[in-house]
C-alpha cells in the first residue's frame, strides 16, 4: 500500500464516507421514528381528550384523512405488544393500553421503545407516506405538518437554513403582538398570534397569552349577545353570539397548542382554569383539563386549582381526597387544612339537604319524624363546622358566612317563613360574593313560590332565564 498511497487514501475516505452514510441513515431512521413517536403522543392525547376536535383550518368535510384509521390500527397493534391486561381508567372504565401508557408521562420511554422495536414498522411507513401526501387531518391545517411534528426538518430546511431564524422571527412577531395589545388594537393582534405559532409551534406562551386575549381582552368591550341573535354552531354544540364565539376560538387555540405540545401542563391548565372554570363556568370540563394538567410535570398550585374546580363541580369527596393527599405531600401548607374542613362541611351540608328532602317527601309520619331528627342533627353539626371556619372580624371568611346564611335561609324556607328567608338571603347576597348568584336565584324561586312580587332586576333576570331556556329547548336547525 505504501507504493500506492492514493489508493490507501481513497479506501480510507470511502470507508469514512460509508460509515458516515450508515450513521446518517441511522439518524434519519431515528428522526422518522421520533416524528412518529411525537405524533402518537399528540394523537393519543386528542383521541382521549377531544375526539371531535379538528385543527383550525382543516375542513370538516375532508374525507380522505387517515389520522383516525391509522391511529386505530396502532391501538390494535399495541394492544398485543404493550404489557398489562384489562387496563382501566380511574373510574374503572376499560381503556386501550396505548391510551393508558401515553396518559402517563413517566412511561414515554415505553412508547418510544415500542416505536423503535419495529412492531409498528408498517404503521410508521404509512404515517410517513400520509404525511408526505398531506393526508393527516391533525396536521393538514394552516400550519405546516413538518413544522409541527418534524420541526427539525422544517419543510426540508428552507426555514432552518438561516440558522433557525424562524424561531427568532416568531419572537419579533410576538413583540409586535405585545405592542398592539398595549395600543388597544386587539383585532390586529389575532392574525399575528396565529402567524407566531405557525412560525414556532413550540411557543407555548404564545398559545397561552393568545387564548387569554381571545377569551378576555378581545371581548372586553363587546356587549353580551341577546339570545335571539345567537346562532347554533354544530362544531361547538352551542348557541353563540359574536362575543361568545371568541371564547370558543380561545378553546380551539389552546387545543391546537395541546396538539403540538401534548406534554406541557400550562396549556391544559389554562384551558381548564382560565377558560372553562373562570370564563364559561363549565366545571365538568374544567375538572377534565385540570386533571390532565396534573398528569404532567406541573407547578405546586396546579393540583390546588383542580381540587377547587372539583369542589365547584360538586365532587366534594374527590376534592377532599385530593386535599388530604396534598397535605400528606406538603405538610406545611396552610391552605389544605382549611379546604379539608370546608369539603367535609360541604359533604355534610349536602347530606343535610338530602335528609331534609327525604323528610319533606316521606309519607309515613314516623319515618318523616325520624328523618327530620336526623336532619336536625346534621344541621347542627354542619352549622358548627361552618361557624368554626367562619371566624370573626377581619379574619371572617365570606364563603363560610355565606354557607351559614344559606343554611339558615333554607331552614326558614322549609318552615315556610318566606319573608324572613328572603331577608337572610339578601343579607347573604351582600356579605358573600361567591354566594351572590345562588342567593339571587333562591330569592326569585322563593318569591315565585310564595307569590311575592319580583323587583325590576329580578324580573329581568327571570326573562333572561326564560329566553335562554326557550332557545335551549329548540332544535339546533331552528336556531340556525
Amino acid at each position, binding site marked *: 500500500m505504501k507504493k500506492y498511497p492514493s489508493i490507501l487514501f481513497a479506501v480510507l475516505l470511502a470507508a469514512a464516507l460509508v460509515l458516515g452514510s450508515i450513521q446518517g441513515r441511522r*439518524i434519519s431512521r431515528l428522526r422518522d421514528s421520533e416524528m412518529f413517536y411525537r405524533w402518537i403522543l399528540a394523537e393519543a392525547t386528542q383521541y382521549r381528550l377531544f375526539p371531535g376536535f379538528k385543527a383550525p383550518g382543516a375542513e370538516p368535510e375532508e374525507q380522505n384523512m387517515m389520522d383516525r384509521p391509522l391511529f386505530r390500527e396502532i391501538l390494535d397493534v399495541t394492544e398485543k405488544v404493550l404489557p398489562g391486561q384489562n387496563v382501566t381508567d380511574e373510574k374503572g372504565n376499560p381503556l386501550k393500553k396505548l391510551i393508558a401508557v401515553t396518559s402517563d408521562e413517566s412511561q414515554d*420511554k415505553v412508547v418510544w421503545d415500542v416505536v423503535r422495536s419495529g412492531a409498528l414498522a408498517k404503521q410508521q411507513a404509512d404515517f410517513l407516506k400520509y404525511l408526505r401526501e398531506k393526508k393527516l387531518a391533525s396536521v393538514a391545517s394552516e400550519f405546516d405538518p413538518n413544522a409541527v411534528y418534524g*420541526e427539525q426538518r422544517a419543510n426540508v*430546511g428552507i426555514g432552518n437554513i438561516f*440558522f433557525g431564524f424562524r*424561531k427568532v422571527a*416568531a*419572537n419579533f412577531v410576538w413583540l409586535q403582538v*405585545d405592542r398592539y395589545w398595549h395600543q388597544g388594537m386587539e383585532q390586529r393582534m389575532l392574525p399575528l398570534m396565529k402567524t407566531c405559532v405557525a412560525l414556532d409551534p413550540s411557543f*407555548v406562551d404564545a398559545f397561552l397569552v393568545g387564548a387569554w386575549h381571545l377569551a378576555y381582552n378581545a371581548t372586553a368591550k363587546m356587549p353580551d349577545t341577546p339570545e335571539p341573535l345567537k346562532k347554533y354552531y354544530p362544531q361547538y354544540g352551542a348557541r353563540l353570539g359574536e362575543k361568545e364565539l371568541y371564547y370558543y376560538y380561545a378553546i380551539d387555540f389552546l387545543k391546537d397548542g395541546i396538539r403540538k405540545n401534548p406534554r406541557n401542563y400550562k396549556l391544559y391548565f389554562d384551558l381548564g382554569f382560565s377558560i372553562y372554570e373562570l370564563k364559561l363556568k363549565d366545571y365538568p370540563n374544567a375538572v377534565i383539563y385540570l386533571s390532565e394538567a396534573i398528569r404532567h410535570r406541573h407547578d405546586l398550585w396546579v393540583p390546588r386549582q383542580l381540587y377547587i374546580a372539583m369542589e365547584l363541580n360538586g365532587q366534594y369527596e374527590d376534592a377532599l381526597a385530593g386535599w388530604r393527599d396534598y397535605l400528606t405531600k406538603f405538610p406545611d401548607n396552610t391552605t389544605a387544612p382549611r379546604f379539608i374542613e370546608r369539603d367535609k362541611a360541604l359533604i355534610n351540608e349536602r347530606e343535610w339537604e338530602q335528609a331534609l328532602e327525604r323528610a319533606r317527601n316521606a309519607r309515613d309520619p314516623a319515618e318523616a319524624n325520624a328523618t327530620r331528627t336526623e336532619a336536625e342533627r346534621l344541621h347542627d353539626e354542619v352549622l358548627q363546622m361552618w361557624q368554626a371556619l367562619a371566624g370573626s372580624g377581619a379574619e371572617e371568611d365570606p364563603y363560610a358566612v355565606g354557607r351559614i346564611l344559606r343554611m339558615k335561609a333554607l331552614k326558614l324556607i322549609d318552615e315556610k317563613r318566606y319573608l324572613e328567608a328572603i331577608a337572610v338571603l339578601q343579607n347573604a347576597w351582600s356579605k358573600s360574593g361567591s354566594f351572590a348568584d345562588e342567593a339571587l336565584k333562591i330569592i326569585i324561586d322563593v318569591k315565585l313560590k310564595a307569590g311575592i312580587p319580583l323587583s325590576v332586576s329580578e324580573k329581568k333576570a327571570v326573562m333572561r332565564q326564560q329566553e335562554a331556556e326557550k332557545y335551549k329547548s329548540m332544535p339546533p336547525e331552528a336556531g340556525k
Partner: protein
Amino acid sequence: MLTGHIRGPWTIAVYTWREGMRKKTLIGFLILSILVIFGSSFITAFMTETTVGEAQTDTQVKLIKDICVTAISIFGVLITIFISASVVPNEVENKVVYTILSKPVRRFEYLLGKFIGVQLIVIINLVLMGALFCIALYLRQPVAPTLLLWSIFLTYFEFLIVSAFTFAVSCAASSAVLPTIAGLFIYITGNLTEYLKDVANRAGQTGQWLDQTIGYVARGLFEILPNLQNFSLRNQILYLQPNDPPRDVLIPNLIVYGLVYAVAGYIIAYWVFRRKEL
C-alpha cells in the same frame, strides 16, 4: 516515540490557537456575538408589562434563548469557517510552513496540529459565547441550564463537520478567500441536503430515464453528503421535556456522525496537502 508524535502536533495546535486568537476578524466576530447575546436581555425590555406575569417571564426567557442560539450559530459558524479557511493558506503565504516543515515534523503531524488548533479556537469561542448565554439566561431565570449545554455541545459537532471540509478545501487553496467562500457553501448545502431526499422521493414518476437518473444521483448524494439539518436538534432540545427518550438516543448518534465526517474531511485535507508542492 508516541510522545513525540503527540507533542509535535500539540505544539503546533497551541501555536495555531495563539495565532488565531490574535486575529482581528475573529475578535470582531466574538465581540459582535457577545453584544448580541447580552443585547438579547435588553430586547426583552421592548415588551411592556402585561398582567400575565409568569407568561411574561417565560416569553422573555424564550426570546433570550432563541436569539442567543441563533447568534451562536451565525457567529460560531463564521468564526469556524474563517479560521478553518485561513490557518494553512496564511502560513503558506507567509512562508512559515517552510520553516516548520524543514524541522523534523511530518506533514501529517503539521496538519493534525493545525486542525486541532482550529478546533481549540472554535471550542474556546463556543465556550465563551455559551458561558455568556448561560449568564444572560441565569440572570432572568435562576435555573441550571442543562439542556442549553447539550445544545451548545451539539452545535460544536455541526461546526466540526463544516470546519473539517473547509479545512480540506483550504489545503488546496493558495489564499483564504476561496476556502472561506467554499466554507459558506458547505454550510448552506449541508443544510439543504434534505432537499436531495425530497428530490429522490419525487423522481421517477414520469418513468423517463433522465428523471430516474436524477433520482439515483440525488439519492446517492443524499447518502454521502453530510446532512447538517440533523443538528437542528440543538434548537429543539431547548424546549423538550427533561425526560425525552428520542433526545437521549439522538445525541450520541449525532456525536458519532460529526466525528465520522470530521475524519472524512481530515483524510481529504491530508490527501491534498501531502501532494502539495511546497
